[in-house]
């Protein structure tokens, strides 16, 4: 465009400016709409989502031991805690924690509204970079220890030392009856 004055009326936006902007905006929205399916296709597919819940019978886990089950392709810890472990978890002053949570906040009440404090259910993925921590009282806090970069978790699965930013994640779950739980 050699002569800009053709397009403007004394510096005021002209009809042509309006058409340019409107067309450009329309094309941008169109490009976004086309891009959207190509971005969203990478999300978990319907069949993956359909596998999203699993059931576990807690009575099969002996006191002082833990099992690892698979939920949505990732491991989940189910631990039957000893009285000592529970006491230790409850004694912690939560204001000293990196991710402050009481022990009860990490549990789900049963059908009768009572906590079954002996059963602790958490994702077995370190909140740092996703390794599976070692269990059965590993680490300096008697809970779990992630060997990848040295995160220590206590008997409630709360982060106490090391690079992990958050407590081990408690998945959504509900008690179906006294001892059976559905995760997801």
């Amino acid at each position, binding site marked *: 465009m050699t002569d800009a004055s053709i397009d403007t009326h004394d510096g005021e936006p002209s009809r042509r400016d309006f058409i340019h902007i409107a067309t450009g905006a329309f094309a941008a929205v169109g490009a976004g709409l086309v891009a959207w399916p190509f971005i969203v296709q*990478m999300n978990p597919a319907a069949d993956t989502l359909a596998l999203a819940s699993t059931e576990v019978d807690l009575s099969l886990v002996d006191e002082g031991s833990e099992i690892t089950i698979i939920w949505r392709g990732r491991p989940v810890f189910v631990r039957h805690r000893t009285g000592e472990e529970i006491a230790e978890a409850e004694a912690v002053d939560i204001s000293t924690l990196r991710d402050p949570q009481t022990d009860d906040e990490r549990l789900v009440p049963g059908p009768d509204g009572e906590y079954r404090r002996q059963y602790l259910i958490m994702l077995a993925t370190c909140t*740092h970079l996703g390794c599976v921590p070692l269990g059965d009282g590993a680490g300096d806090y008697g809970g779990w220890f992630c060997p990848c970069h040295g995160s220590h978790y206590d008997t409630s699965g709360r982060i106490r030392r090391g690079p992990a930013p958050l407590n081990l994640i408690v998945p959504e779950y509900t008690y179906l009856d006294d001892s059976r739980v559905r995760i997801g």
Partner: protein
Amino acid sequence: MSGPSTYEPKTGFTRWLDQRLPIVRLGYDSFVDFPTPKNLNYWWTFGGILMVCLVTQIVTGVVLAMHYVPHVDYAFASVQRIERDVPFGWLVQNIHSNGASMFFLAVYIHMFRGLYYGSYKPPREVLWILGCVILILMMATAFLGYVLPWGQMSFWGATVITNLFAAFDGGTGIITNWLWGGFSVGNATLNRFYSLHYLLPFILAGVIILHVWALHVVGNNNPTGVSVKSRADTVPFHPYYTVKDSFAIVLFFILFAIFVFFMPNALGHADNFIPANPLSTPAEIVPEWYLLPFYAILRAIPNKLLGVIAMFGSLLILFILPWLDTSRVRSMRYRPIARWFFVFFVICCLLLGWCGARNPDHLVFQTGVDAEGHATGFTFLMLARINTAYYFGYFLIILPLLGLIETPKARPASIDASVLGGRKVSSSGAAVQPAE
């Protein structure tokens, strides 16, 4: 540098073609008659070596893709089958897996060359930045490829690296689930990684074309850093550098062949011969050697988000290097102080690599014993922190300040003069020409 073309078509057909698609002219001007400084040393042969590496990876990769099965149940076995049952599969697989290491060896030497001789300074900023893009694409490609054999290191490497991005979504899993196509690294992840591992090398090839194009606009730097001033400073690319590059490529391939034929797994990790198991993490996760320095930077910082930022920052800082270095003297041959800091920088990168391979809590050396009888001393974490500080300090403090306070040595009047031992220009700061 790219002066008027001197190509003259000799036959009727080439004359006809030249007026329609001057592709022979392009090749002639780029690789035959291209005027090249006559003092390039062997550090300049790595560009050619890198070209050959890319072609090697693409050719062997396309062959592997004929036999590889991208499915969590078959991937591991299909790679074992390539190594054991497919005719010459062992050869192609070993070339491809060791080729990645050779590629990085060459690219790191190529980059240190650029750092030492100031090849990132005007007018080569865009050339340098394209190089940085190439490095990042190479890292992405190699990471994706390393996941494909679906061994324990593949799986857990993929888990750790994809979880880096969770630093940016506040633990909601939005980004990681999108990357995985599921709730953890799984079959959907393997499939998309395979697709992208196939794609990226071709994007890489495209960026390399831009890199070479930018090179041919501004011309080669050279060991003196002094700009080309006349025809006397240059020789035609062919035969002088075609032969020199070919010789270097042959030497490089001897090294390559030693790895492929005599120690094909020396650079790999034993845990990757165990099929991926989502329920058990190997005792120690280490990336391939060429990513170790960056892994050390990640772990040097106790906070997840800051660690991730530092790791990406260590790559991104290279992009702005042309504007961080304030010295107008390109070559460190004539920068008596800077060259020492450069030597320390190379050592720093090697030490970071060492830290990346070791457990951060283990000791480099012991100084004493604590109350409980455990050895105490200087840990790899401390070493990694010191070197991370130096890595960033080199770019953010040393190079910006040094350019202002250092007195450079006398530079030759021209490349020709340096080769023939001619007169020198004065060393006073005022005489420094723009970017020599």
